[in-house]
């Protein structure tokens, strides 16, 4: 009885939380009244809330492109049933009728100004940094002439350096991330592929979870930018295989990527 009381209190608090989110949480016709939540003390009503949330999420995803307003309403409705659902919060935010974007300025020396090609990802482009040519750095002051030729470069500078796959991989990952920031998705994918190949050269047993996950997230972000969600899903599956505890910063990661990561994580759990 005491436990039931605690559950009822938790349910009430969740209702208050859902109400604070601005949702109308009255039951629809034919729904159990009061509207169950996933924390309902009655296990069957709680299960109904779980299944109803899953059903609404499927309908919301179907509506995102043709009926974005309806999609947002459905994501909000899920918050009535499951106020803690991060997926629903992200969906509601993504489908909000008014969205804000704050593109940063990226000054890159020598980069020609102009709009990079990002066909098919117009709305995502609004959040990406905008590249401008940086003013040229001041030229180095010439050394005073003393009548001697400049010293020859050190022999090691011109000799071929031994290959270091891990360093190559990290450099490629960095290039991929830089390309992403400038919305050069194809370039990001090429760099990610080079990083993947370089990591493949390393002996087994090396702790490569972090760079592997990082490169696959970069690849997935580019693939989402190119509207290739199937490829992005595969990349994120590899990311969570490499690092099952992978977490992305929600402040710096596109909601689409965050949601795709959660889907990949769920798919990995289902496979096991």
């Amino acid at each position: 009885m005491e436990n039931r009381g605690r559950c009822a209190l938790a349910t009430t608090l969740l209702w208050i939380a859902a109400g604070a989110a601005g949702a109308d949480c009255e039951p629809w016709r034919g729904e159990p009244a009061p509207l169950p939540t996933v924390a309902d003390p009655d296990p069957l009503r709680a299960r109904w809330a779980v299944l109803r949330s899953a059903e609404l999420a499927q309908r919301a995803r179907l509506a995102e492109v043709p009926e974005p307003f309806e999609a947002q309403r459905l994501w909000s409705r899920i918050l009535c049933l499951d106020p803690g659902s991060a997926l629903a919060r992200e969906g509601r935010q993504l489908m909000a009728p008014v969205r804000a974007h704050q593109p940063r300025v990226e000054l890159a020396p020598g980069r020609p100004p102009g709009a990079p090609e990002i066909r098919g990802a117009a709305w995502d482009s609004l959040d990406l940094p905008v590249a401008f040519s940086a003013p040229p750095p001041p030229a180095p002051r010439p050394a005073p002439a003393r009548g001697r030729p400049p010293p020859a470069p050190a022999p090691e500078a011109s000799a071929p350096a031994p290959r270091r796959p891990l360093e190559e991989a990290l450099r490629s990952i960095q290039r991929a991330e830089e390309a992403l920031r400038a919305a050069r998705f194809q370039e990001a994918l090429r760099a990610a592929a080079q990083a993947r190949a370089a990591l493949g050269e390393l002996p087994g047993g090396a702790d490569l979870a972090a760079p592997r996950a990082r490169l696959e997230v970069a690849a997935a972000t580019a693939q989402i930018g190119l509207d290739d969600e199937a490829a992005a899903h595969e990349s994120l599956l590899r990311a969570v295989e490499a690092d099952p505890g992978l977490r992305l910063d929600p402040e710096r990661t596109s909601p689409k990527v965050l949601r795709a990561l959660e889907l990949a994580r769920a798919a990995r759990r289902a496979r096991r």
Partner: protein
Amino acid sequence: MKARRASLALAALAAACTSPARAPEPRARLAVEVLAGFPAAPAPAPARPSRVELLLDLTASMRAEVAPGVTRALLARRAAERFAGALAGEVEVGARVLGARSGSCRAVERRVTPRAGESRAGWLQSLAAREPAGEGSLAGALDALGAELPAAAASRDLRVAVFSDLAGECGGDLCAALARLVGNGVRVDLVAVGGASLPDCARDLDAPGPPGLAAAAGSDPAPRFRVERAAGAGPARLLAAARADGVARSLPSGPGTVLIDLDPPARIGPLVLPPSRLTLLRILDFPGLDPPVREWSLETLPLPAGPTPGSEAAGR
């Protein structure tokens, strides 16, 4: 006195012997409840034709620099060019400029569209090449834009992309203007340059109205069920029939199979319905989920005190 008592006893005995000897059939109670999902997965709605309107702010405050050599106007213009160039070809695009002509708090300029054969990025580049010159109210510009958009936004996907520093020298209620656009089914993307941030009132705007799906949910009454008992080679005996609305019904105890009019029909049992007990059968039916889910639970409870057979609630 003794004779009278004896005659009464004889009369009672006679009355008992004239009616056939028949023990009352023990009764059980059964409540069936269906907690349902949506009937079936819908076909995806066709994508609607899209129209995007760009509003570029070139008011005086856009002259401020955000980086060495980069003004707010230049950043906004570059972002707008990139955006317009990336829109799919079938999207109808128009643009308006605010503050491109000198003067105080002038209205937004007329809508312009790319000429035939002109690339969108190039068109926008030429449109926005002018330097910030005058003033104008962003809220007023959004209102004017909303008045020009088709009233029936439901027939197409209407979006407005605003490139601005959100400075409000000419006043106007930006939140009210945004709310009016949203109320007409228009989505708005505010690309804020120069460190401006979206006011909270705009962040809190939600899609107006209830979900269309609410109207489709659960319009049918509870499905019907019946309980049958096999009778050898003959037809099954019907023990009870009612709606699966969670109300307890009285029926003969013993074995019985519950058949519920779901799609596809559900057949549960045979169950044993114990006498003088309430059997609670609850079904979760989600045919519209991918994959569909149907689960059921069975519980036997003591009868609640003082029920009226056939009409009492299931006790929950």
